[in-house]
């Protein structure tokens, strides 16, 4: 044998196809759910005012799901974010009402507290190696308890106007109105569309020019056209109401920033590497402990953002705020295709998962379904989504 025998191997195409198929299935499911509620509520779901509410009422799910998806990719879980929202909201309210601090100080204080609490939990998970399930279960009890202690069981209301606007007001219509439509909102919609199309086209062409796995042209253009139509319709609806909620801008920035962090930064790559194979990551020089630590600092900070949005929308801090928020966030992440074993997950998936949860909340509320039954429905949807995923993965042999 003097020369290397040639090997004929054709790597399987199936896996990549399946991953794309999963993304489309998720979007399809969201559209189907929207369609169902649009029909069952007699068109009320997509009334401009309801769409506006859908965003501001479910902003916390999106914010927490973004932090949670990173935690779950790394192979952990965080059960404490709901309680954390209550506690940090309480502290922010106390800062403004009891200590008479300006709004910006309260906001900075809340964010710093979120980061500090995250560092506390991250310390136990990363360095003492207490399982995150236990650390954050403890946090769930501790922070809820502290929220009640801080508020002495009551409520702090009457939060300043500028604070409340973060969660409950709209960007002023300084571009005026045309045919009762807020021009600024339409402009934002157009900018989003242009940004989306340009970036998608650039990525698609680059992939193609390198001969890498690009979607076929019809699929790509159909998908792009659908997204463009969705964004435009969405901004048209908002423009009919009061325009663009501040919180939507916040969500947009967070989604873009964290998509970038997970896809493009060394930190994001280390999270995936750790979740996919912790030992291989360690052997490659990833500082796994520090990555774990900062993942928790991050979700703590995002919980503070969620706390600000929640108290601002309510105009008050209550100790029962944020109940079950952790479960909404975890459910969104798993509906969005993350794997329980870690290593898999996307910000976009988590956001779509959060939208599914949001539409369920909103649709069922409009149908005036009892909140007990709402829980039953959400629970079953979560089970169905993950079961679908597990079966799908097993079939493709990648589980």
């Amino acid at each position, binding site marked *: *044998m003097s020369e290397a025998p040639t090997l004929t*191997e054709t790597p399987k195409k199936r896996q990549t196809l399946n991953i794309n198929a999963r993304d489309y299935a998720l979007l399809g499911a969201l559209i189907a759910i929207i369609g169902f509620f649009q029909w069952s509520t007699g068109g009320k779901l997509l009334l401009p005012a309801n769409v506006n509410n859908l965003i501001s009422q479910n902003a916390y799910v999106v914010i927490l799901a973004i932090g949670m998806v990173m935690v779950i990719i790394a192979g952990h879980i965080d059960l404490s974010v709901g309680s954390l929202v209550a506690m940090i909201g309480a502290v922010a309210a106390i800062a403004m009402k009891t200590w008479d601090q300006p709004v910006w100080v309260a906001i900075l204080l809340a964010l710093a507290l979120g980061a500090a609490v995250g560092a506390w939990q991250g310390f136990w998970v990363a360095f003492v190696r207490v399982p995150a399930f236990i650390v954050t279960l403890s946090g769930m009890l501790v922070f809820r308890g502290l929220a009640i202690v801080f508020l002495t069981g009551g409520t702090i209301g009457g939060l300043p106007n500028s604070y409340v606007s973060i969660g409950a007001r709209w960007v002023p219509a300084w571009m005026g109105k045309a045919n009762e439509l807020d021009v600024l909102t339409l402009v934002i919609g157009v900018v989003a569309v242009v940004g989306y199309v340009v970036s998608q086209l650039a990525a698609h062409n680059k992939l193609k020019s390198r001969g890498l796995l690009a979607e076929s042209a019809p699929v790509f253009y159909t998908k792009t056209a659908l997204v463009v139509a969705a964004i435009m319709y969405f901004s048209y609806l908002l423009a009919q109401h009061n325009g663009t909620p501040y919180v939507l801008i916040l969500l947009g920035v967070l989604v873009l920033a964290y998509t970038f962090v997970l896809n493009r930064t060394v930190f994001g790559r280390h999270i995936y590497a750790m979740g996919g194979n912790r030992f291989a990551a360690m052997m*490659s020089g990833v500082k796994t402990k520090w990555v774990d630590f900062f993942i928790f600092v991050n979700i703590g900070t995002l919980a503070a953002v969620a706390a600000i949005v929640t108290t601002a929308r309510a105009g008050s801090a209550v100790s029962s705020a944020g109940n079950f928020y952790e479960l909404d966030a975890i459910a969104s992440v798993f509906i969005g295709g993350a794997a329980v074993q870690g*290593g898999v997950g996307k910000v976009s998936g988590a956001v779509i998962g959060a939208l599914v949860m949001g539409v369920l909340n909103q649709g069922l509320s409009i149908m005036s379904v009892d909140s007990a039954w709402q829980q039953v429905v959400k629970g079953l949807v979560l089970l169905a989504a993950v079961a679908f995923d597990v079966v799908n993965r097993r079939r493709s042999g*990648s589980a």
Partner: protein
Amino acid sequence: MKDIVKEFSGVRALDGVSLDVTRGEVHGICGENGAGKSTLMKVLSGVYPHGHFDGEIEFDGKPATFGSINDSEASGIVIIHQELALSPYLSIAENIFLGNERATRGIVDWHETNLQAKTLLDRVGLKDKVTTPVLQLGVGKQQLVEIAKALSKDVKLLILDEPTAALNDEDSAHLLNLIRGLRDEGITSIIISHKLAEIRAISDRITVIRDGHTVDDFTMKDKDNSESRLIKSMVGRPLDNLFPPRTKNIGEEIFRVENWNAYHPVDTGRKVVNDASFFVRAGEIVGFAGLMGAGRTELAMSIFGRQYGTKITGTLYRNGEKIQARTVQEAISNGLAYVTEDRKRYGLNLITSIAANVTGANLNDVSSMGVIDLHKEVEVAEEYRTALNIKTDAVTRFVGTLSGGNQQKVVLAKWLNTTPDVLILDEPTRGVDVGAKYEIYGIINDLAAQGKAIVVISSELPELLGLSDRIYTISEGRITGDVPREEATQEQLMKLMTVGEN
């Protein structure tokens, strides 16, 4: 057992093995790592059910068609694996009757359980209380519990896979005596072992397996029952021309390890690496030969960022200067690279792209201020794809979709991308087919030609003889030999690899 053939995705692990064990004897099975011993035992004990292999098994004069381990146990065949399978938090008695509880209508009779367990423990000579949790026992005693468990099932044929591998001399002696005692009670045993002296001492008859064939079979009553006959049979295969030609260009010493010691991370009293010293020159390929559990991987991993072991002591030199490698990052920045064995567990993230794996150990190279340049990443991966001939249609493919040989090339690419001076390759061709092996040997030769120092750890002696300029042998954590390629023979290496403490 007659003409057993077992294939794993096209690779013949067993190719017509026959084994003939007489009632009431202790039968030794010898062979190199990967010769097919364990596979054969798994066929015999029903781990691979009837129909998943070719050939015939006859037990007690009747053809046996075991569909599962339960079937073989029902006929009296019990296998005790190298990794013991006891539940650590359950008591000795509970473990003995696990799956075979002394119960009526689902209610366990603890009195009966403990009483019978006590009788069994007496038979195997274990004095601990039957209520002791298994995790409080040493490996030697756990081995005895396994045997007691086998006895509880009315065993007729007991198969022991490397029973003394993790035992000290005293425990080994006790175990071997016990097996002799069981033989006198009429229980037949099959023992697989790497320790040649031991296997000759205990066996009535020995079968040697090599490359999935039975190559020798003799009783201790035969005239020639020497250790050298055993060794010759184990390694006797001629060296095929499996290795690409190479032009040697050996330079100065690059890397030296002196007086390296490491202890077991959990059992901290056990010294796993014992005063090891070695060196590698630029352009030199140095082999490390040792049997499984000899401490080869532990040596490498304790050097590379102290990823294994505790109480590590010793000195590392690079180009004559003392260096530290206390963390993986430090090791990498000092020009070390360690290509792990068991790539799926330790080497790769299978659920991400080839490109992400290739750059995984040196992300700084393709990023600035923490932001990865994804296009540069793809370019780097493409370079390695061409250079190492990784067979895929795109580097954005998941690594999990590649064949074993190509996965191994991805791990190699990942470590070459850290631009090391010293490459430690741990079992670089395990689970890789012949063609890809040849390619990987070619890559190793090229790297040596570029002046890199290469350490190859391998269980396959022919591989080491084909690749290396020099071969270190390691046995029980100690370096027992430093043999130039010209003087090395498989027999001599095998002898050095099996040197005991005494």
